[in-house]
């Protein structure tokens, strides 16, 4: 063992002791059950001085993140919801369709499957056909925006894959939808 290595170990040991001193300690004998306080949860705020802070870094940031995988990109919204017994893409969902339409229009290599769904009311096969109508309605809008037929497949799950599982309007509203799934 050389002198240099010795002194480096000593330095590390000292640093470790300082780090320990920085931690607060609690005498076990003085520990009491934490009082139960009825209060709003406090959100901890990270500061530069927090020694346990972890700053997230995206390795792909600034190097062409796939917009489909970016939660901040409007393309991350991929569901269009419908009224009962309706296949009309409501105005509030047209921006979503528009966003995907222009993305697909400029990225002709991308393929999307539009999956139609219905709520549980009615027959299974008829609902499969209703879900198909919803998927088809979204496809027609996409094609008006310049998307070509071969980029879009429409399929239906009918009532078979509900997102909301209750038998109430809240669940049904979640299930009357068309999802855009990129392949």
């Amino acid at each position: 063992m050389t002198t240099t290595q010795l002194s480096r170990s000593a330095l590390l040991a000292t640093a470790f002791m300082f780090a320990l001193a920085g931690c607060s300690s609690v005498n076990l004998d003085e520990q009491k059950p934490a009082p139960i306080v009825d209060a709003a949860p406090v959100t901890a705020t990270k500061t530069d001085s927090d020694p346990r802070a972890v700053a997230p870094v995206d390795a792909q940031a600034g190097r062409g993140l796939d917009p489909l995988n970016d939660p901040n990109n409007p393309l991350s919204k991929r569901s269009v919801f419908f009224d009962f017994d309706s296949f009309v893409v409501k105005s509030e969902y047209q921006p979503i369709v528009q966003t995907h339409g222009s993305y697909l229009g400029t990225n002709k290599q991308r393929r999307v499957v539009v999956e139609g769904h219905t709520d549980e009311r009615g027959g299974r096969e008829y609902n499969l056909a209703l879900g198909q109508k919803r998927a088809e309605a979204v496809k027609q809008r996409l094609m008006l925006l310049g998307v070509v037929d071969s980029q879009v497949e429409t399929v239906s799950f009918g009532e078979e894959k509900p997102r909301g599982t209750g038998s109430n309007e809240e669940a049904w509203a979640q299930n009357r939808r068309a999802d855009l799934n990129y392949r």
Partner: protein
Amino acid sequence: MCATVFLAPLPTPVLAQLQVQITGVGSQQFPIAIANFQRDAQVPTEIDAVIRADLARSGLFKIVNAGTQPIAENASVDFADWKGRGADALAIGTVARLADGRFDVRYRLLDTVKQAQLDGLSYVSTAADMRLTAHRIADRIYEKITGERGVFATRIAYIVQTSPKSWELHIADADGFNAQAALRSREPIISPAWSPDGTRLAYVSFESGKPVVYVHSVTTGERRAVANFRGSNSAPAWSPDGRSLAVTLTREGNSQVFLMNADGSNVRRLTTSSGIDTEPAFSTDGSSIYFTSDRGGGPQIYRMPVSGGSAQRVTFNGDYNISARVSPDGKQLAYIGRRGGRLQVYVLDIASAQEVLVTDTASDESPSFAPNGRLLLYATEVNGRGILASASTDGRVRTRLSGPSGDIREPTWGPFIK
């Protein structure tokens, strides 16, 4: 007879049996006594109890108490005594173990009024086939008394969803016993349909991420996708000769009815509407196809020639009629109608256009005729859970089949097996 039928050992764990509950009876019931069969200690199945349960479930028989004393097939019977007990017919029998381990089952059906034998047969049955033998005897009794073929030895298929990620295609005896899983999947399975010879099932499976029509050979488990076109593929229906399948495809846009060979070849479009055409069902003579269409607004049932062409509307009551099935004699149509928010099974006499409501439940789906046309099997909900139920086509007799767990749905009654 039964000796020629070998059931393979169960490839899967034995499934929990369905429970039968009779909720209605026919107005005229034939009084019959089924005596306990004389049997050796080693006989596994209470063959007489299975026969009694079958006949009772049909709603057409009143089972007269025959006491606990077994009566052998060759015993002499005091006809007047049985007539006095209220039984117009009496069945007696013997089950004896053979040297090779199988069983000799002998039965006689006696008319206590005419004091004559109506039927007498012997079967050689394995232990595994004993329930089937009992169903066959029940079928004989049913036919001798009513003049129609019994359906107790037929089978049913249905779908069970056991969890949010688990679907199974089951095949069971008509009384719900001997349920076996023919297919298990983590994606939905819907719309099973028996081939006319009872050897294959067509169905829709979502296992590839979209609806695809498969044909599945029941005994071998061999299966192939016969309609896997762009878009959705669904609603398979067999032609009466088993050579063709009508299916719903969306490869040209919305759901439309197509005809293809049973192997998936020679696909041609039958309907050309701008809306939904689906759920094809062949007429009994194979010359026309009934289907559901929303061409007039809400869904109604229409009929067209099997070659396609102009369609005639068949249902006119209510604004929602779907899932048509044709009776084996071709004279009736069963379907689901929605009236006042209730989805129920209706039976239409095609010639007179008279419609009869046959169920007392409110969320009915998937009606299917028994091969003798007497009963309809359908799916419904009780306490939020899917169960199977049956009703006589006049609506008088109703029974329920419920399993211990899981949602049961999409039943389809299989054909007579030779």
